[in-house]
């Protein structure tokens, strides 16, 4: 794999790896006695492994293939495998924390296994580990295909992919050591945040340079969504993580924001992480793989424009609906609520556009589990965006907030939409990437589909029930005007739903394991088969961006 790099590229990659390793050494040395020292060792170990992989083919001869005749797919392949491994890890840990909520003794009384440390391993593991790697890998694939151009550089994509995973590993290991800045979905401390900025800027440059080399006059919708994802996540990440380290030799930092400003910044970030990480990027995936797999044209280009700009414009305002009935000024809450409702139609327009695209291909949806993954993902996308707008309305939020309904809503989106579209895309992508005839086992894809769907449905229904019961118990008054139930009683009422939730998670995890196995078997055992016309066009072959006269 590394032998497709030239000797110069290999030594450049090695230099970068060693520079990061040196950074890890400095962290380990100056951070002695502080958790940042242990994090330094994590960096050293990680970069040492990367260095060894590089050294193994360091003296291989330069590749002879003509680069202009093919896309650069090695980082995509590795990214897909890593994404699936993170899926198994993240969902496995998710099953553990779900079981912990039903049976609290499952934490075995160790410090590292406390709920507050393990839960972010689950959330970051699935969002960043699984989702992030799936996004990066598919974006590499899609930006090259829809531009009919090869990536401009062979080291940069590796830097983005491996660098991003270094961030994920620092984050997950840090949580278990108790390192957190207590910002939800932005728990890693300042040094990890700085590293992610470097990686993300590299990602942005790579994407822009590939688009700049495109041999298509227009930029396809999927690319708009991926670019919005990359650009806005950078802005969100930088602003929300503004902090002053307590010491350059320690992990602890203090946020630049305090009080209600901190809460508002956090949920501006938190909600737009949902919007631009978990929605925008995955819509990019949907816009490429769904029409490709269905063999149908996108239903409406005009609807794409309406929904893209609607989503990008309205989402940014909606974060304050996470802080209804709090110290946040009332007018900010009203703004958040109204923009959340105006967001609904553009969101549904995307889901509708996807489903209408399937007109003329519904027989394929019936027969092909891969396409069915994508179809059901679009349905869940519509479902959770409707639910989100509904829950953002203040009086509804008064019932739903702080209950399991929120958890159910998030998982309808995360499992039903994000994970299903990723799995569907991975099944569509794997045979193309590895030049295979088909997936190793279509029956396993079918099995995975039903495991994932039943897991999601069980999970979401359990949390809907639990959340609404919880919300109602908290606001039920007795005859004399005092609350009828104590918090503890609502906890006891939740127990059966927590057990059901763990069962749903188990099914979903089983599906992910089947998926990883199926992809690995496809790579190892399926006969080779080259897809048609899967190579960049030379730039002379294209017409100018603006046709002379039309």
């Amino acid at each position, binding site marked *: 794999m590394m032998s497709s790099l030239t000797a110069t590229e290999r030594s450049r990659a090695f230099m970068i790896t060693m520079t990061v390793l040196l950074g890890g050494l400095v962290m380990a040395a100056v951070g002695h006695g502080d958790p940042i020292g242990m994090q330094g060792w994590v960096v050293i170990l990680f970069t040492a492994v990367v260095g060894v992989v590089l050294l193994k083919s360091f003296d291989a001869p330069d590749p002879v293939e003509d680069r202009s005749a093919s896309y650069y797919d090695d980082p995509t392949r590795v990214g897909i495998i890593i994404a699936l491994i993170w899926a198994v890890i993240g969902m496995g840990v998710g099953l553990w924390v779900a079981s912990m909520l039903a049976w609290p003794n499952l934490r075995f009384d160790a410090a590292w296994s406390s709920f507050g440390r393990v839960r972010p391993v689950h959330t970051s593991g699935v969002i960043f580990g699984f989702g992030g790697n799936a996004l990066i890998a598919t974006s590499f694939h899609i930006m090259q*295909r*829809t531009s*009919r151009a090869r990536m401009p550089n062979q080291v940069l994509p590796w830097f983005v992919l491996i660098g991003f995973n270094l961030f994920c590993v620092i984050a997950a290991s840090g949580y278990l050591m108790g390192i957190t800045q207590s910002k939800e979905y932005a728990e890693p401390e300042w040094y990890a945040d700085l590293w992610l900025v470097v990686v993300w800027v590299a990602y942005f440059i790579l994407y822009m340079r590939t688009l700049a080399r495109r041999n*298509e*006059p*227009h930029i*396809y*919708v999927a690319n708009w969504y991926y670019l919005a994802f990359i650009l806005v996540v950078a802005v969100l990440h930088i602003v929300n993580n503004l902090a002053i380290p307590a010491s350059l030799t320690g992990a602890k930092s203090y946020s630049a924001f305090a009080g209600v400003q901190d809460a508002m910044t956090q949920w501006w970030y938190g909600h737009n992480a949902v919007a631009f990480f978990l929605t925008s990027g995955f819509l990019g995936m949907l816009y*490429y793989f769904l*029409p*490709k797999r269905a063999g149908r*044209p*996108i*239903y*409406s*280009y*005009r*609807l*794409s424009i*309406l929904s893209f700009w609607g989503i990008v414009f309205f989402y940014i305002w909606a974060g304050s609906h996470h802080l209804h*009935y709090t110290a946040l*000024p*009332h*007018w900010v*809450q*009203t*703004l958040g*609520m*109204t*923009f959340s*409702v*105006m967001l*609904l*139609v553009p969101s*549904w*327009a995307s889901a*509708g556009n996807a489903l209408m695209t399937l*007109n*003329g291909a519904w027989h394929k949806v019936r027969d092909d589990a891969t396409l069915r993954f994508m179809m059901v993902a679009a349905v869940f996308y519509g479902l959770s965006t409707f639910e989100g707008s509904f829950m953002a309305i203040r009086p509804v939020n008064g019932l739903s907030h702080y209950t399991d309904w929120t958890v159910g809503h998030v998982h309808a989106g995360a499992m039903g939409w994000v994970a299903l579209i990723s799995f569907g895309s991975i099944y569509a992508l794997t045979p193309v990437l590895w030049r295979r005839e088909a997936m190793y086992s279509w029956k396993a894809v079918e099995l995975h589909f039903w495991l994932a769907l039943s897991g999601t449905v069980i999970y979401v229904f359990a949390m809907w029930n639990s959340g609404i019961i919880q919300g109602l118990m908290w606001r039920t008054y*007795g*005859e*004399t*005007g*005092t*609350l*009828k*139930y*104590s*918090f*503890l*009683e609502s906890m*006891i009422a939740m127990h059966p739903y927590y057990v059901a939730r763990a069962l749903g998670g188990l099914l979903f995890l089983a599906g992910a394991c089947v998926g990883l196995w199926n992809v690995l078997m496809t790579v190892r055992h399926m006969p080779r088969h080259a897809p048609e*016309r899967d190579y960049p066009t030379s730039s002379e072959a*294209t*017409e100018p961006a603006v*046709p002379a006269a*039309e």
Partner: protein
Amino acid sequence: MSVKERDPLTGHQTTGHEWDGITELNTRVPRAVWFFVFVTHLWALIVWVLMPTWPLVTTYTKGLLKIDQREEVEEAVIEANLARADWSEQIEALPAEGIMADPALALRVNETGHQLFGDNCAGCHGLDAAGGPGFPSLTDAAWLWGGDTDTIMETLRVGINSQHSETRFAQMLAFGRDGILTRDQVRVVADYVQSLSNPQPASERLVEGAEIFAANCASCHGEDGAGNRDLGAPNLTDAFWIYGGDDESLFTTIHNGRKGWMPAWEDRLSLTERKILAVYLHERRQEADR
């Protein structure tokens, strides 16, 4: 490449572009979409006019309804306190028996007490107040400091071994760990303590145990082991145990000592609330007796 084609299925034209085999139809946005865009925006507009919404430089638009969440909460709290005033004053003024004699007040005590107990006490003492290992049952006859309403209210107010300046204080020494008694002596006196609630035939061992007890334990637990409520020393002659009365638990208790802890509630619960809890507990105990 910019060749517009007609999709035979829908009859719509493509935009004429193609990316890796993907094309797009130029279908116009369905009317229903525009309709719902209109509806949601109209709704937002109405809310903006009615509610506080848009920031101005030093203030914000207050909305025609002049609603403010802070004022709403303050009014609701005043209202709720007013509604409570009639019966909460009665509860404060009346003695415990008087409260339960009045059926209307008794109902309030039961409902409010249930919720107060659940949110403040049940975490340790259990929802049924029956306690658990390390946490005393509040429904049995055994009380460390006394079970009448006034004493319970005082215990609630200052706590046990708490940070309150007037806290009740009680500690059992670590007789084994601190070298006051040998391990054998601990075992012997443990047997003697067990015999207090579960009489055994006289033996030399029990005589030796009685001697150790008289020299080390009687000062707090009393000559007869019946405890001392002034010191919070439990009665050892009854069948109720906080940390367990089996050989192993007793050995651990005598060897390592004990120092239970209960928070002080003076700053966290109002006098009325504490009184409701005390009366509520009294009721639960009588219920358990029945």
